[in-house]
């Protein structure tokens, strides 16, 4: 049986992890390669690296980091942040990234999704969608939730699926950072309406939240950052608990 995936997300700036990470006694918790290896050993199913560098140099450093991660880590990983062209993706995949995620560049130019899936295959194209529920309607936002678009979450998700996205990473801006649980109602609707995997993101605070997002939210994978980085929820404990709830996980 295909298992539900647990995905730690690491924010990267100029080749270093940004948010504090303190879940084990690491010599260098700012080194994404060290962290990635550690997470792979602790049972993470996949990893996501989000590049938040704003400079060209930062982007180059990111490529070097991707190469090092690919050299040393034996589980799949996705790279996102600042990707806006076929050339960007080509460079990342050549360095060994398994998947890439695009967000605002897809909203600005939806054909990019078609171009990437035609050239590299749907399996490596993740479309990340940040959305906020306003007066009952889920509106797609850009730039970390600061800029509203005119797109409805479900319409946009369905459109990128048709254009060739292989997976959707949905972050609820209402839930992100709250540690009060994932946006399960919207997730369940996405998962039912679409026929590609959905990754839940935003709101993880407890083990129950993960259980809920896999049952109520029908998510295929769950992504989180701080609960893993600060050791609040060890991945092994989480997976044991999910297994007890009859949720299929890889242990």
């Amino acid at each position, binding site marked *: *049986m295909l298992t*539900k995936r647990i995905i730690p997300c690491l924010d990267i700036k100029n080749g270093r992890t940004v948010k504090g990470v303190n879940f084990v006694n690491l010599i260098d918790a700012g080194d994404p390669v060290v962290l990635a290896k550690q997470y792979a050993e602790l049972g993470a199913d*996949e990893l996501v690296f989000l590049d938040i560098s704003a400079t060209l140099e930062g982007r180059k450093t990111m490529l070097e980091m991707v190469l090092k991660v690919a050299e*040393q880590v*034996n589980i799949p990983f996705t790279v996102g942040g600042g990707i806006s062209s076929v050339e960007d993706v080509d460079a990342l995949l050549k360095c060994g990234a398994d998947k890439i995620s695009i967000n605002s560049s897809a909203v600005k130019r939806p054909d990019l999704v078609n171009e990437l899936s035609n050239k590299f295959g749907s399996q490596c194209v993740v479309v990340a969608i940040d959305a906020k529920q306003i007066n009952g309607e889920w509106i797609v936002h850009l730039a970390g939730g600061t800029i509203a678009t005119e797109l409805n979450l479900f319409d946009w998700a369905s459109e990128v699926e048709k254009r060739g996205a292989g997976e959707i990473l949905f972050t609820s801006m209402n839930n992100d950072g709250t540690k009060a649980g994932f946006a399960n109602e919207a997730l369940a609707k996405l998962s039912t309406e679409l026929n590609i995997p959905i990754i839940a993101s935003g709101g993880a605070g407890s083990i129950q939240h993960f259980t809920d997002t896999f049952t109520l939210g029908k998510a295929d994978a769950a992504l989180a950052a701080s609960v893993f980085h600060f050791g609040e929820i060890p991945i092994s404990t989480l997976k044991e608990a999910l297994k007890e709830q009859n949720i299929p996980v890889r242990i």
Partner: protein
Amino acid sequence: MKLVIIDYGAGNIKSIQFAFKRLGIDAVLSNKVDEIKAADKVIFPGVGEASSAMKMLQESGLDKVIPTLKQPVLGICLGMQLMCNSSEEGNTKGLGIFDVAIKKFSNSVKVPQMGWNVISDLKSDLFSGIKDKEFMYLVHSFYAEKCDETIATTDYEIEYASALQKDNFYGVQFHPEKSGIEGQKILENFLNL
């Protein structure tokens, strides 16, 4: 040990090269017929769309060469699918090494299957030391039906062949290079065949 990874332009082969590097083997990337023929072991990778990958093989003449190889050959993911008779993806012919057709998952499940699933009914030295129902990482929308050459099965919508073997030819649908320590063990087993 001379290991060649066939480089015919289909998909990301860096990960496979790195996986062997972790095992202490410097794999050579090549599309040269002589170099491939002279290798001790050959990896036939592939990510992407079947009919265009098949076209690339035909353009380089490798479609004629691969089925004649005598050393152990391991097809991974699309590589395994191309070693079969045909694929519904782009309605293409395959290399015809494995006597089975590649079909598409229906819409009753999410497509692609993406993530960790188990392999069962293991029947090859390729899986020495690997326990039944071990987890492997898979990403695919098309699958090989169960057949006489099946050496592992996986369940997703139906029970299908997640690994095949005929003589010196091996194929795995999953990505051993991305399947943690156990995946690495399978690559090591291949080197020891």
